[in-house]
């Protein structure tokens, strides 16, 4: 009987990816986990168990910052989900219809903000909305709606929603492209068959196309979730490290930044920072698991 050959090539082919991924992701992840269980006492790292987490959740001040950041982050995600994805789907549906002219131009135009850096987007919008130099007050004045203008980024009541909408503006191209691609992949025969049965226009979209693009919408939702709960750049470039006014735009990312690296006279605390990032990791892990086990496994897939 022939001896079974060892299949070395599997290990060899996997090695580069495993090594790079371990060095850049797995190792730091466990490093962070470990840091979160330690505290600095007299310049020495001392094991303290779950003390950092206890401080984070039960110390009055830490808990207040944390829940405030989590609440803001959830609202940020909520606006993104509720505006970005429906608008993205709508744009994709319009672009994929054959009656729209210049659709290639629009597709590019809607997608361009996505490839811009956060810094450019943040500063551009900060200038547009600036009550002093911005064009937003003048534009509103031209159509007689000056009274609608407020320093949106400077008011506690509007700053976070404004930032969420800026983020929507920037990233609406991604759901649009993904949905657009899956809409194009729907075979014409299916649509023609439906048309013969009397389904056209809106009802064709709702009854035929929408069920076929659910898996893509699921993917987009999870991308939005992960992206939003990791968000930091936009807030930092427009509102600064203190996520003003009065911490009303503080999200988990900006709280982590201030905790881990410090801000102004506040000295960075790597152990509390690590504890916070472990919590963030947990939140994202829970969200993704919920999607994978509760939603994706029940989703119906169609094959042509």
């Amino acid at each position, binding site marked *: 009987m022939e001896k079974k050959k060892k299949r070395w090539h599997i290990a060899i082919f996997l090695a580069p990816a495993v090594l790079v991924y371990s060095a850049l992701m797995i190792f730091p992840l466990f490093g962070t986990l470990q840091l979160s269980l330690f505290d600095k006492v007299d310049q020495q790292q001392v094991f303290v168990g779950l003390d950092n987490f206890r401080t984070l959740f039960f110390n009055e001040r830490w808990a207040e910052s944390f829940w405030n950041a989590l609440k803001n982050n959830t609202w940020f995600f909520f606006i993104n989900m509720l505006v970005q994805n429906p608008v993205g789907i709508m744009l994709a549906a319009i672009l994929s219809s054959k009656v729209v002219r210049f659709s290639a131009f629009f597709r590019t135009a809607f997608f361009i903000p996505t490839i811009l850096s956060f810094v450019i987007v943040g500063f551009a919008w900060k200038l547009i909305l600036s009550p002093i130099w911005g064009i937003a007050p003048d534009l509103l004045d031209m159509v007689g709606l000056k009274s609608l203008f407020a320093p949106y980024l400077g008011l*506690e009541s509007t700053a976070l929603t404004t930032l969420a909408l800026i983020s929507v503006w920037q990233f609406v191209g991604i759901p649009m492209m993904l949905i657009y691609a899956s809409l194009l992949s729907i075979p014409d025969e299916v649509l023609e068959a439906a048309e013969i049965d009397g389904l056209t226009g809106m009802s064709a979209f709702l009854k035929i196309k929408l069920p076929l693009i659910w898996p893509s919408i699921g993917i987009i939702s999870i991308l939005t979730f992960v992206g939003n709960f990791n968000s930091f750049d936009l807030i930092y470039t427009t509102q600064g490290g203190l996520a003003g*006014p009065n911490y009303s735009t503080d999200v988990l990312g900006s709280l982590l930044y201030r905790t881990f690296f410090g801000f*102004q006279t506040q000295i960075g605390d790597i152990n509390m920072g690590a504890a916070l990032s472990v919590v963030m990791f947990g939140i994202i892990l829970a969200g993704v698991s919920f999607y994978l086990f509760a939603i994706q496994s029940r989703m119906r897939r169609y094959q042509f």
Partner: protein
Amino acid sequence: MKTKLIVSALLASSFLGSAALAQGVTLTIESWRNDDLTIWQDKIIPAFEAEHPDIHVIFAPTAPAQYNAALNAKLEGGTAGDLITCRPFDGSLTLYDAGYLADLTDMEGMSNFGDVARSGWTTDDGSATYCMPMASVIHGFIYNKEAFDEVGVEVPATVEEFFAVLDKIKEDGNYIPLAMGTADQWEAATMGYANIGPNYWKGEEGRLGVIAGTMKLTDGGWVEAHRQLARWGAYMGDGYEAQSYPDSQNLFTLGRAAIYPAGSWELSGFNAQADFEMGAFYPPVENAGDDCYISDQVDIAVGLNAASPHPDEAKVFLDWVASSEFANLYANSLPGFFSLSNHDVMMEDPLAQEIVDWRKTCHSSLRPFHQILSRGTPGLATEYWQTSVNVIRGVQTPEEASQQLQDALASWYAPQQ
């Protein structure tokens, strides 16, 4: 063959590189003064290098808001420059305690500085000084003289006159009375609360009282300063809630605002940008003839990275920083940064001279929350950014704001418990 060529070329270049280094020593300065980059490159460093041709100096600033965090990370990682620009008080004290800054007490140049100048960078027991003091900054108000003439108002001396001036400018409508915004938060605290406050908490008396625990932040003067600050909101520009620090600077230098609550460090920028005549006045007092107090903050110093591979050359630079040549060069290249040394410094900028002369009429005092009171978490320095903005925007009453500061302090500071 080809690879061999490349390898030998690389080897040759690395040899040449090290040969070039052997000729002299390069010192790198970490700093948050990115606004001063050109002045260091064009004036200060060439003056030093002319005397010490074997030492090459690089000025490598970081953005102010990121400086402390970036510096800490660099020091921990062992990649920080040889010379470290020091924030006053606890920001640098923690670095010294952690062993990142070298003790400079015995350096010859240190004798050129008095106790007040050194206080910002000396340990609590006074045994060690770890940074060579460079400059202090003074708070007050800079105003547009043309705007004052046009509206027909005079420099105010009392608080009521101050608000009368603001009312008149507002009525006139051509100028925004106060060029300040709350988007970046720190101006409200530094140029607002710390600027006018010393008049109410009697400067050092109040500050040391809080440190000693004999006075609370909810006592008279500390709350009154919040009350005065709360009146400012009405005189700031439309949408000041989203107005950032550079916005305010531009509003003033473009001649659209009349009064700029300032720190003296603005002078060099304003001299270059504004094409109208500027004047300055110190924070108005309550009743005419009252003693006046100004915030005269020891602000900037330079220390030696304990891990620097070139400590001797770095000390040569530090001694030069203590020299009268540097004091004159620095004070005149950067009007508004006033030398802390005992050397006689002649200032060419009349406005800078005017501001520094306030020291003769008013009592000098340090910013309230930099020494000791920001040592714990939450540190007052960041906390009062928030309360200052809140009282200006009217979302917190002056009493609530003061209570928040007191609670924050009492949560970790024993003398206040």
